[in-house]
């Protein structure tokens, strides 16, 4: 370790840490404690100070239908989104992992939706998904299929949001998996080729195990993101039709900043935290069964 002049050292530490630690305290730790307190309180922001009501917020949330409907909506999203994003981003990564001329141009193109803001992306998809005047149903029509009402239909609104999310995220996860693929030493494939393994065997026995840590990363991140859906819903459906796309963050936002139920919204946000935490923990536990780490 470096030898410093003592007086100088502590002054430097103080000054260099000041902005960041001040931020940590004021916008990190204090709000955590505040949010916890609020979740046990009732407060409409206008009248008086928050009133402590114990576990009432949590009990009311868990007793009502809404929370379970919201969870159900989120699960519907996850069941569609996770397999689709895994398959599509892995396929994209495998495709990009070839040596062809102009591949960089394709990589650049696939990444454009990623740099597009969620608000703009959602607006675009709202219009793409329009049942009558949108591109998607007209394309379906072209191949002889009758497209659904998408965002106007209780069953099809969430799949519509999933499609938009796949479009937005596939370039991101595809490139992450692509860098995972590039990390696999070619000697494995050469050895397999000598042993006469066909391409499916090579994929199953070499690629998949060796890329499993990256796959785990993709699954964890996309699951966390799934519980935090927000702009898509706000822009495309506002939680509708008939509550079919209401999700946790959208509820938290509306309870806090439209209905001014600060305590109730805070309790909701802690439930979100607990769910995300448990799901991530579960993933870390389950990984031992399928994730392969090179020693």
């Amino acid at each position: 370790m470096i030898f410093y002049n003592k007086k100088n050292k502590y002054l430097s530490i103080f000054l260099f840490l000041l902005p960041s630690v001040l931020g940590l305290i004021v916008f990190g730790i204090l709000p955590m404690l505040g949010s916890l307190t609020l979740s046990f309180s009732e407060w409409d922001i206008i009248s008086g100070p928050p009133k402590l009501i114990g576990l009432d917020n949590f009990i009311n949330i868990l007793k009502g239908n809404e929370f379970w409907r919201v969870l159900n909506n989120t699960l519907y999203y996850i069941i569609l989104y996770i397999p689709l994003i895994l398959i599509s981003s892995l396929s994209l990564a495998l495709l990009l992992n070839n040596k062809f001329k102009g591949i960089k141009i394709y990589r650049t193109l696939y990444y454009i939706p990623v740099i597009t803001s969620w608000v703009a992306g959602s607006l675009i998809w709202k219009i793409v998904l329009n049942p009558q005047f949108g591109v998607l149903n007209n394309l379906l029509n072209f191949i002889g299929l009758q497209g659904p009402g998408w965002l106007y239909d209780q069953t099809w609104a969430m799949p519509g949001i999933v499609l938009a999310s796949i479009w937005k995220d596939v370039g991101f996860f595809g490139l992450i998996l692509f860098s995972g693929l590039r990390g696999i030493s070619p000697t494995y494939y050469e050895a397999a080729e000598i042993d006469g393994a066909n391409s499916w065997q090579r994929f199953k026995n070499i690629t998949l195990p060796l890329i499993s840590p990256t796959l785990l990363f993709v699954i964890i991140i996309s699951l966390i993101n799934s519980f935090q859906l927000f702009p898509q819903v706000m822009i495309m459906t506002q939680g509708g039709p008939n509550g079919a796309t209401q999700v946790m963050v959208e509820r938290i936002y509306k309870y806090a900043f439209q209905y001014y139920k600060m305590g109730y919204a805070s309790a909701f946000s802690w439930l979100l935290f607990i769910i995300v935490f448990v799901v991530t923990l579960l993933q870390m536990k389950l990984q031992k069964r399928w994730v392969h780490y090179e020693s």
Partner: protein
Amino acid sequence: MNHNKLKSGIIFYSLATIIAIFMLLPFFWMISTSLKNSGAVMTIPIKWIPENPNLDAYKRVFNIFPFARAIFNSVFVAVVTTLITVLSSAMAAYIFAKFEFKGREVLFSLYLATLMIPKQVTMIPNFLIIREIRLLNTFTGLMLPSLFNAFATFMLRQNIKTVPDSYIEAAIMEGSSQFKIFKDIVLPLIKPTLATLTVITFMEAWNRYLWPLIVLTDRSKMTLPVGLSLLNGQYGEQYNLLMAGSLISIIPMLMVYIFAQKYFEKGLSVGGIKG
């Protein structure tokens, strides 16, 4: 030419092109819609290429909404937020990487612990704090929380650790101040990480939606995502307007992407961790 190679080449290019079309079709539809008249947006069968392409929607979007102002606000907020985040995090990271003091590990684990907490948990109290210090509806209030960024601090600390102690020691011997060492030795040595972080932070700040939606209420203060969502609320059925607005909001980011592509791809593998 090898027959097999030709075959796989054809398969590759057709697949890659089909995917590219799928990815770009929505953008094409956006541009096409933005060039149509309000009436032409809703015709069946749909017109891929507008019959009378015109810029009416663009003119209207600037007229009915302070759109030029929103562009300026977005640029300003994204640039300053990035500066604040990177500078404040780099300063803290330097201390965590190169100074020993009591409680360092505890403090740093607090940083890491906050990474697990979803932003939505701290969002409500953060709003109340900004309200309490009378900074609602100001850019200062919007950007102040960026002083603290656990992810950026972590990433920079890892990088500053690789700077040899001897460089810093030599500079101390010569009587350089810590500020000078930080500016002239540490920062230049971690330039690639700084660039990557700058790009990720800029993109995040540019696209941020929920926090500005809460903090900014004045139309003249709005950033592009908030402005677009307001436009969506008021003119939700006027597709040409919405698409003109969307296109305008995408172009600046697209330009940054084209010029700094290498850093986007570098930031990717680490950027995902934030969630």
